[in-house]
């Protein structure tokens, strides 16, 4: 029997390996966000006490109802960027790859947002995660891998932040899984947030982008200042329980039931719509 040609096998294996590497979708470029999905919630932003559609627990509802937007005037809040699980909702972004010079493999994928100059790295080299007692960050620690043509990203080590920009919290023990899906010149990013402290089930949302390489990502300097003169030292704006000045303003304006406006997992499902409207009619 004829011996197999070892060189040919090796060459075939090499080709296979290289084609596997080539199969990675390249996400590099400047992507401009498309805001049509959930537009009112994104621009101008959610109303006070507009919690529907988010699977919050009772604790998170209480946090939302205690949240006074004046807290954003505090110096410790003025320059905060959106966390990685929220920053897909706004602002154009640049994506570029970091290539390891020796192996020529993708070491990491960097994403820079225009708003608040948020920048994150999705490590592709399978490095070890930091220990639980390491410092957390707005963007967290992300590891990515390709699942077919989809970039799957798992993030830990997030700072406490928000799941919606009206006081609904996302804790620092939350983790996220994201999927980056490219369709030609369009990019869809799906983020799944797991938060055992404040969500009763996973919260999922998607955001869309269009390639726009002519666009520049501008710098975004930020310098906190005293915005309100005379605030006492240590003052933290918040509403006392039961004293929210506009708890049902949103619900009443849009003729929704109060139960719907106050959110919870049930309000995220289509069948809730009939119940909410029926309740209102009564």
């Amino acid at each position, binding site marked *: 029997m004829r011996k197999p040609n070892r060189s040919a096998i090796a060459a075939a294996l090499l080709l296979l390996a290289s084609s596997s590497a080539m199969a990675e979708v390249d996400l590099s470029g400047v992507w401009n966000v498309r805001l049509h999905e959930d537009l009112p919630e994104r621009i101008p932003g959610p109303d006070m006490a507009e919690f529907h559609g988010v699977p919050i627990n009772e*604790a998170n509802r209480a946090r939302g109802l205690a949240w006074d937007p004046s807290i954003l005037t505090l110096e410790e809040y003025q320059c905060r960027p959106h966390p990685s699980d929220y920053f897909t909702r706004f602002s154009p972004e640049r994506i570029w790859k970091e290539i390891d010079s020796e192996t020529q493999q993708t070491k990491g994928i960097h994403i820079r947002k225009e708003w608040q*100059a948020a920048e994150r790295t999705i490590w592709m080299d399978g490095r070890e995660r930091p*220990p639980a007692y390491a410092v957390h960050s*707005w963007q967290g620690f992300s590891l990515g891998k390709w699942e077919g043509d989809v970039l799957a990203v798992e993030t830990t080590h997030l*700072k406490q932040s928000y799941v919606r920009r009206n006081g609904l919290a996302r804790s620092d*023990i939350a983790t996220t899984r994201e999927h980056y899906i490219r369709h030609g010149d369009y990019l869809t990013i799906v983020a799944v947030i797991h938060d055992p402290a404040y969500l009763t089930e996973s919260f999922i949302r998607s955001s869309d982008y269009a390639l726009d390489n002519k666009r520049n990502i501008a710098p975004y300097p930020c310098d906190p200042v005293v915005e309100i003169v005379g605030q006492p030292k*240590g003052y*933290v704006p918040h509403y006392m329980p039961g004293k929210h000045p506009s708890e049902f303003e949103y619900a009443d304006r849009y003729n929704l039931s109060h139960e719907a406006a106050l959110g919870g997992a049930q309000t995220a499902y289509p069948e809730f719509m009939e119940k909410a409207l029926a309740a209102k009619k009564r």
Partner: protein
Amino acid sequence: MSMNRNTVSKAKVAALAVAAILGAASVAMAAQPARQNRNAPAAPAPQAPNFDAVQIKVLPIRDNIYMLVGQGGNITLQVGDDGVLIVDTQFAPLSDKILTEIRKISKAPIRFIINTHGHGDHTGGNGNLSKAGASVAGGNMLGPLAVAAQGQGGAAPAGAVATILAHENVLTRMQESIGGQPPAPADSLPNVTYIGDWKDMFFNNESIRLFYEPNAHTDGDSMVYFRRSDVLSVGDIYNTNNYPVIDKARAGSIQGVLKALNHMLEITIPKDRQEGGTLVIPGHGRLSDEADLAEYRDMVTIIHDRIKDMVDRGLTLEQVKAAKPTIDYDPRYGSGNGPGSTDRFIEIVYNDLKAAK
């Protein structure tokens, strides 16, 4: 360096550690009015940690500063040509393991131990680690050549100990029997104390300031600020796991905790976007920065304000508890038992505010 010459029997050390844990657990209980103490169910005795299973983990923070995590309070380590400086020492049975990790980083002698406060989970290893080091003494009292040899891995001179530095009130409290617990062993007591608002040091080419934070977690709290490294080690005034633990038997108070948290925020400066810059090593939990600290300060302030409003309206403690003033933070910081439990925190805040009326 061997610790054998200084190591007390394992059984004795374990007994002391359990006593320290029981002491910490009894902290809040001891402060309650006598009537409440008689009627309250006994707090479950904490189980003695299995120190054999504890691993000491080292987190490099910045330049020559490290955080050591094991069982008990976080340890801050600063190393350099002048020697080794340790902030807090966890439990005595862990001293060998702690010293092993320190020696992987530096062979220089331990010169200073600073205690952020007097609780056993932060001071239990004082005696062992102090005896494993040596302070530089004047008058050739301990032999400068022997001290120098220690820096080369030689044995410490007989009788040499590292300086144990803390606020004066720590020394006082550690000598007291509180909540039925015995005083701390003599070799773990601070041998240098300070009074006043702060104490300055310069060690390993770095300015270090100890800030006294009165009546916060205890009445002897110090925060240790490493100015060049921009690292603030704050002891149990701030932790990332629980509501503040306030030791009423040692004159801690909610007002002191809030004042100290706001003081921390004055010291910390973020690098950019409220991230990085000054790093904060908490008494327990994960490494933090200003944004983490701000979230914690906000939480404590909001709960304080709610309970104050209820006290001002004349609500009883039972009514305050029924109103659930911590409901929105319980999934993250609440717990059912122990000194940092939700009920205990509410009780202490309520009683402090009532007393302040």
